């Protein structure tokens, strides 16, 4: 009888653990040395806890079954025993020491950020990430690319629902990459489970972390610190490429940036600007000011019929380009190109019945940006 109970008990503990490896519901072991170490640590503590749990709960269950009044059990009289009390204070203590040693070793490794091959500054914004490759002339924003329709259930959800971005971070395989985390507004936290890197991005301060990824691939993560309304919608995607592919990508990305700035010298018609503006508005502004331009009362001002959108274009340009310090309205000077800025401002002045009729040109923006 007792043996059966024990084996059942053990099985009920083991079953979920064995199973969740198959269902992919345990922590992923990840693709870096550190993430492996963390995974091992996790499993070690887990099994120690399971073992202690099995022991404690078995004794308890045994008493519940055997020492019940309905079975005629008579209560014994002991209520103290110095020896066992000392033992069950000291033994757990040493178990803990056993856990603390590998944990500390892993921690020390995680903290050694020196000798990196590449430095990338990661800045959290409400609600997107900015990646600056220090020492390279490359700097871009990365935001959610899942369409609103999927979120609002009017479209089938894609495979990487909420875990996809427009511009992923790209790093080379096998190189030590140092991240410098900071934030523009509130605290965010950059987390990619496969690397076991999770570090808060704190406005005004820089936190460091590092990784060496050994397998090329696409790795996904999410912002892990509540950062306002769209905290759930600022994923992270990292593409790890072989060295050659990485160099190619680097060159392409720099070239694309050049094309974008060339576009500013082109002539743009009202229709073109409005069309582009709508697109930019929906990706960059609608999260706060809403697609219908009405904002969220008390939190984000509406732009439909607002004094600024109907008034002097200079003031309007100023607030979009430079943002408003100390509010959620961030500066878009680095986030959007001159064309995009011109387009989105033109759009705001002429959409939703704001028919001001004037047009803001990329040249005007370029002047403001000086």
């Amino acid at each position: 009888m007792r043996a059966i109970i024990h084996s059942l008990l053990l099985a009920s503990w083991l079953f979920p653990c064995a199973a969740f490896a198959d269902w992919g519901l345990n922590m992923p072991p990840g693709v870096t040395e550190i993430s492996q170490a963390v995974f091992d640590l996790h499993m070690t503590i887990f099994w120690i806890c399971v073992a202690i749990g099995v022991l404690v709960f078995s004794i308890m269950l045994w008493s519940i079954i055997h020492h019940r009044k309905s079975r005629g059990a008579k209560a014994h009289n002991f209520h103290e025993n110095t020896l066992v009390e000392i033992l069950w204070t000291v033994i757990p203590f040493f178990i803990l020491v056993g856990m603390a040693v590998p944990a500390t070793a892993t921690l020390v490794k995680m903290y050694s950020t020196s000798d990196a091959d590449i430095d990338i500054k990661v800045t959290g914004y409400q609600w997107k990430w900015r990646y600056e490759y220090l020492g390279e002339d490359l700097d871009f924003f990365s935001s959610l690319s899942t369409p609103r329709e999927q979120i609002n259930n009017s479209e089938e959800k894609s495979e990487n629902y909420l875990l996809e971005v427009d511009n992923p971070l790209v790093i080379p395989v096998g190189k030590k990459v140092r991240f410098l985390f900071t934030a523009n507004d509130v605290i965010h936290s950059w987390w990619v489970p496969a690397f076991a890197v999770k570090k808060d991005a704190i406005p005004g301060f820089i936190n460091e972390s590092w990784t060496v990824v050994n397998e090329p691939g696409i790795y996904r993560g999410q912002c892990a610190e509540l950062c306002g309304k769209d905290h759930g919608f600022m994923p992270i995607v990292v593409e790890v490429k072989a060295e050659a592919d990485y160099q190619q990508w680097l060159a392409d990305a720099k070239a694309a940036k050049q094309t974008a700035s060339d576009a500013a010298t082109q002539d743009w018609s009202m229709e073109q600007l409005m069309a582009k503006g709508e697109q930019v508005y929906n990706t960059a502004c609608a999260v706060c000011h809403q697609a219908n331009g009405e904002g969220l009362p008390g939190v984000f001002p509406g732009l439909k019929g607002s004094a600024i959108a109907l008034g002097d274009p200079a003031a309007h340009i100023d607030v979009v380009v430079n943002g408003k310090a100390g509010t959620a309205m961030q500066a878009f000077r680095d986030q959007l190109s001159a064309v995009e800025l011109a387009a989105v401002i033109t759009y705001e002045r002429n959409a939703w019945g704001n028919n001001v009729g004037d047009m803001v040109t990329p040249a005007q923006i370029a002047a403001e940006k000086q």
Partner: protein
Amino acid sequence: MSSEAYYVPSQSRWPILASIALFLLAYGAGSMINGLSSEESGSGGMILLAGAVLMALILIGWFGNVINESMSGLYSEQMDRSFRWGMSWFIFSEVMFFAAFFGTLFYVRTLAVPWLGGEGEKGVSNMLWEGFQAQWPLMTTPDMEQFPGPQQVIDPWHLPLLNTVLLVASSFTVTVAHKALKNNSRNNIVLWLAVTVMLAGAFLFFQAAEYIEAYEELGLTLHAGIYGATFFVLTGFHGLHVTLGTFMLLVIWLRVLRGHFEPENHFGFEAVAWYWHFVDVVWIGLFLFVYIL
């Protein structure tokens, strides 16, 4: 000290009234403060005032009850101990309140400001604030446009030193008054309490002068970055406690004039004295860590 059993007061309407008053105070203050930044004029100030007046009346009534009960001998020695425990733990809670602000001061001085200035383990942060250097007092803040640092800070060896002397002296005079009470020399109690109150008043006066100087001449304001913030929050809350303590001293002074308190039964007096010593000790901490060091 006559009755043997513990005194349990019968029903009282003070607690619920005091809750209402507290609610009005909080709600009024909230509306008023929110009105400040949105430039709306609301009824916040009026509600706040109503709450304050109501609270004052309640406290007078409530303490009045307690005093009457005490004078009519309803309280036992055990009751007296309850009051003592109550007051001691209340003072402990006040200590912890100040501990939060002192902790803040130590944290920014030893960690945050050096990090921002490029020292220590998070010194890379200086990348974001090029040219910023850690110093204390923090005269130049990381972002001088948003938080223009002070031009100058208070010299500890003028008003603050004087204030230290005043407050320490007042701790002595209140002890002298207490001794007098134990010896039942009523005139001396009245005298020394009056001196204490005057010292307290002088302290508050100089503190106010210091604040005016800070704002008008030194550029040391709440807005002047973390030095100003910690300076005003610490000295400000201390000042509020001195004000409260002064009121309490005044009240017991008036009670002494009315012939309250007996040589061996005067917990009200002692409570105020304890509080006063606590305020004094906090000041010593301030003088050391805010002004001198």
